[in-house]
Structures are given as C-alpha cells and as structure tokens.
C-alpha cells in the first residue's frame, strides 16, 4: 500500500533550482562539494553572483572545454573550473578569513543530519577505524552569514535527517539557517523549525511524520 500516491519528491536538479531561486543578485556564495555543486548551473540569468572556492578563488566559472583544462585551476572537489572576468586568486589563509570573518553571504552544503536548533552533522559517520576527514566544512559552518543545507529529507531507509538532536558527530552547533530537501524548505528559527515551502500535494502532517523534530507552518 502506498499512502501517498500523488507525491513527487524533487529531483536533485530540482532542489538545486529551488535553492538557486533564493540566491539574491550580488551575493558572495560558496557551494559545497556534492549536491550543492549543481546549483551553479541553475543560477538565474541576470543576477551577478560571485562564487567562492575554498582553495583560493572568487569569481569561479563553469567547467572548461576538455581541451582547455588547466590543472592549476581547480575547485574544492579538485575538478577543473574556469575564472570569470573580475575573478581573483588568493592564498588559503585569506580564503578562510573570508569564511570565518563573515564575508560570505551564503554557503550551501550537503547534510547528514540537521537538528531543531540548527546543529549540523555532515562530515563524519563516526565509524571506528575510518580516517576523520573534515576539509573546510567546519570553517564554512561557523563563518558564512547564512548556512543553507541541501539534502534528501530522509535517509535511504526512511529515517529522518532533520532530528531533535544530531546523533552523528557535529560539524557546528546552531549554525544552519535553512534546509532545502526533496520535500520542503524549512527555516531554523529561534522559535523552532518553520516550513516555508512544500512540494505540491504534501500536507504538514505527512511532512511531520517524515521529520524527527516538531515543525510549524509559516
């Protein structure tokens, strides 16, 4: 029995488009490795949005043609990129000063768990024996003015990823501003989690059943 035959969760591409819609003209933005990278190709025409890459780039452009790849021009995922007119290179201490110093307007990262109070877990599954690997996630989490998380609403086995309390190792405490999932857009506010948007046909009750922390309507 399928209790919600009409529901059509957003594809990753559609979530990316939904995030892109909310990024204002003139923003300085860092897009994390993984799903958030899709957002770059969805940014609305006519808006000037400057992309930051942790390895020392502002004004990062799309991937180059195969014959124009330069191994010295790569993104955080170590994939070849280009530089737009007006772009700049700088060293790592400056790049992370841009994050920690609150100069980035928005960062979008993937997430494993987000708590009702905006705690974020997205760097470690906490498995013994695996080497810990954090990269720039903790710097972005504390530094960007707005931290948007882009993720599936539930894990593959149906467990909620929005939870009362994170059980996975934290990336940062109280850092998330908003979560974009394949079902909804949810703000983290001092009054709790507030649903800003839902896919067609979804009720707050159903969304609540798939979520591990209390939700309120906007």
């Amino acid at each position, binding site marked *: 029995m399928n209790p919600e035959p009409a529901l059509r969760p957003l594809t990753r591409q559609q979530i990316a488009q939904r995030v892109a819609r909310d990024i204002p003209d003139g923003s300085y933005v860092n897009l994390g490795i993984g799903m958030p990278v899709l957002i770059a190709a969805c940014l609305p025409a006519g808006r000037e949005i400057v992309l930051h890459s942790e390895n020392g780039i502002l004004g990062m452009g799309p991937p180059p043609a195969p014959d124009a790849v330069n191994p010295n021009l790569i993104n955080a995922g*170590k994939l070849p990129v280009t530089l737009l007119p007006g772009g700049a290179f700088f060293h790592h201490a400056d790049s992370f000063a841009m994050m920690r110093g609150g100069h980035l307007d928005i960062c979008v990262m993937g997430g494993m768990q987000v708590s009702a109070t905006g705690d974020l877990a997205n760097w470690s599954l906490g498995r013994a024996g695996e080497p810990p690997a*954090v990269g720039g996630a903790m710097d972005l989490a504390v530094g960007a003015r707005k931290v948007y998380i882009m993720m599936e609403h539930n894990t593959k086995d149906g467990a909620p990823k929005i939870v009362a309390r994170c059980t996975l190792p*934290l990336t940062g405490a109280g850092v998330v501003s908003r979560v974009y999932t394949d079902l909804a857009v949810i703000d983290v506010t001092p009054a709790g989690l507030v649903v800003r948007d839902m896919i067609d046909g979804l009720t707050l009750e159903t969304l609540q059943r798939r979520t591990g922390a209390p939700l309120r309507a906007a």
Partner: protein
Amino acid sequence: MIDKFVASTAEAVAGIPDGATVLIGGFGGAGMPTDLIDALIEQGARELTVVNNNAGNHETGLAALIKAGRVRKVICSFPKASHSWVFDDLYRRGAIELECVPQGTIAERLRAAGAGLGGFYTPTAYGTELAAGKETREIDGRHYVFETPLHGDFALVQADRADRWGNLTYCMSARNFGPVMCMAAATTIVQVRQRVELGELPPEAIVTPGIFVHRVAVVPHPSFSS
C-alpha cells in the same frame, strides 16, 4: 650578493634530517611540489611529519613519499579521496599517524607561526570532537577554540616564477597554501617553472616576498600529481 637559486632539486632538499616537520604545499595536485618531493624521496629522510591539505592521491607526489615509508605522521584536513589508497592502507594498519585539522585552522596555524603569534582563538570546530580537550573562551558572546601555531622545519612549495632574491609569483589556484607555508618554515624550499631577472617581476605582483624564501630550484616542466 644574494642568490637563492640552487643547481638542482637534489641540492634544494639537502640537509633535511630524519624526524623533520615538512610543510608540503598544494591542494590536491594544484601546487604540489612533486619534483621536490621526488628529490626528498631520493635524499632519504625518514620519520617525517608532513603537513598538507590531503594525504596523497594515486602513487605520485605526497602519496609516493608516504608509500616509500618516510612519513610517520600526516597533519591534514582531508585524507579521504577516491584514490588515497596508499595512506588509507597504512592508516587502517595503524602504521601512520593522522592529525585531522579543519582546513582553515591549518592555514591560520601556519600563518600564526610565520607571523610570530602564540596562537589564536577560532570559532571553527567549537562544540565538535575536533576541539575535544582544547582550551575554549567566550568573547563577546561567541565561543572560540584556542589553536597553536604550526611551525615547519622545512617547507616544500611550488610557485611559478622567481628571481634570485626569492620573490615569488604563483599560477592561478596553485597558490593555495604556498604563501603561508613559505612564512611558517625555518627553511623554505621552492620549485619554480621559470627564473626571471631581478627587477623583472612587477613589485605589485610579487605574492611571496623573498624574505620568506631560502632555496629555489628551477623545474621548467614540473611533474604533476593528481
């Protein structure tokens, strides 16, 4: 007369002793001083502590140094990659130490070392397991973790052009950790693609002033690590 150029990469890495802390530039392959690393493997120093963003990929560059059994400990932010099997295997066998440090904290610890600071308070990692046991402090309502400077005995860095005073420019995003590593080491060793005459680099375009640089080897066609 000042002339920091040396005749070869072998001469550049001479005297690095067993047990040294070596800062190795690069982010993935961009900026990795692969030719200096190859010379260091040839030179033979062992029991090294290496600082890099990653822990090597495939079997070239830093991965080759690790594979040769020369590295006792890696200080990095992100040792996992699809091709990091050399480090991974040693780590799982308990044959190499790892200190995982947030990427911006590595950069700032290096900068602090180069700038003569005793450390700094950062909001990064507060409340996480990477700050476990570290001193914390609340400043104007925000929580911070105290981090200490990260000094190198040597730095191995790849830059683009150099003059005989050791003034450096870099190529695109290969700059990454280079400038802060040059500052943070007692002896900074650089490989550059091109040697230029003193006065040829526009002063405004010099990214690392030669005061931070000690030896420069010219490698016109650098080897590339992924």
